[in-house]
């Protein structure tokens, strides 16, 4: 290689473009193993490579936070976000940047001099910074995904089901905290208004534990339903929970409680003037 042109890592990358790109692509593809198509990843890598060169030619070659690297950083941020959503691990994400070092080193081993290695040391520092930046974005994107999932879970976990004309049920599963109670309360009240139901059954079979706070939340929901003109029945109270409730001195007042959902449903039907009769009697 002509020594005159190798005075920095940008030149190094420019001179060995094809060889480095080939090795880099190969290294990245081996880690992503079939989870991304070859053409996709090699396209990404080429873009990053060109953006890196473009950034270096615009000013400071060492500070990846400089404005000349804006394009590159945006590109890496996009990649990191995409990887986070696709469920790649942090290592798999970062390796697509770090592999550049191995690729350059591989090319240099075939015939580089001291100046090339000095340039490589500089490049190595830049690549490390870029890799860290990519990981930061990756972590942030992961947090967003987790927050979104938590929200989805919150909504999924509060289905209001219609049992009969004028009777809706709300099977609660999991723990009841303030945020969840709010969602539950809104969902139930909206369902009462939408379906014009006068009876609601809150089934707490799936609620792990009832303490004073949970009881308070339940009472509030029942009171709000009463304000709309609907009556609530609380069902699915397990023996241990009944004991806890009494031990804690929780008063359910005049709110009807039932041991299981079918009893509650029968009560709700009676209250709305219906009765269940066995069909066999009629022959």
């Amino acid at each position, binding site marked *: 290689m002509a020594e005159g042109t190798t005075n920095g890592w940008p030149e190094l990358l420019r001179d060995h473009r094809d060889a480095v790109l080939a090795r880099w692509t190969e290294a990245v593809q081996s880690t992503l193993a079939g989870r991304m198509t070859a053409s996709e990843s090699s396209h990404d890598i080429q873009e990053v490579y060109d953006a890196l060169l473009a950034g270096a030619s615009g000013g400071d070659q060492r500070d990846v936070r400089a404005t000349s690297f804006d394009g590159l950083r945006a590109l890496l941020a996009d990649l990191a976000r995409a990887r986070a959503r696709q469920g790649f691990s942090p290592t798999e994400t970062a390796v697509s940047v770090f592999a550049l070092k191995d690729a350059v080193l591989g090319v240099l081993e075939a015939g580089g001099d001291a100046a090339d290695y000095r340039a490589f040391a500089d490049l190595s520092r830049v690549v490390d910074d870029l890799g860290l930046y990519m990981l930061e974005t990756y972590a942030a994107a992961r947090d967003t995904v987790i927050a979104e999932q938590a929200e989805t879970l919150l909504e999924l976990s509060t289905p209001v089901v219609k049992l009969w004309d004028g009777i809706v049920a709300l099977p609660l599963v999991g723990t009841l905290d303030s945020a969840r109670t709010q969602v539950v309360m809104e969902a139930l009240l909206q369902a*009462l*208004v939408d379906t014009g139901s006068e009876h609601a059954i809150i089934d707490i079979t799936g609620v792990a534990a009832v303490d004073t706070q949970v009881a308070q939340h339940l009472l*509030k929901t029942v*009171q709000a339903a*009463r*304000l709309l*003109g609907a009556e609530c029945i609380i069902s699915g109270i397990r023996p241990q929970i009944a004991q806890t409730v009494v031990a804690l001195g929780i008063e359910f007042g005049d709110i009807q409680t039932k041991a299981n959902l079918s009893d509650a449903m029968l009560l709700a039907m009676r209250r709305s003037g219906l009765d269940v009769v066995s069909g066999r009697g009629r022959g």
Partner: protein
Amino acid sequence: MERVPILRIGDVLLVSIQIDLQDHIALQLQDDLSQRIVDTGAKGVLIDISALEIVDSFVGRMISTTAAVSRVLDAETVVVGMQPAVAITLVELGLTLQGVRTALDVDRGLALLAQRTGGAATLLAQDDDQPGD
């Protein structure tokens, strides 16, 4: 000054709040309503708040007071059509409107009053007057 209209349906008075219920309007309504109950001898009051999207502690208390006043005048109050958001607000404020009956809509509210007044609430005029004579 804006006023909330009070409509008479049989022996039931229907108050449908369609405007932003400011404090002075609420007080005026309370005055008007007690006057009308006495004038008409109504046995029931339906307060439709389905158009009410925001409620504060004053309005919440005013509804309770109106119900209490009506009861003294021998008229049952039913609050109908409360929005879920309003119900949540009232509960959070600790106003559970003790002693006020509620129903999902005007239809059910009328049915409820009919039950209470022993049947034909809407046809009351003749039926009710006779035993009194």
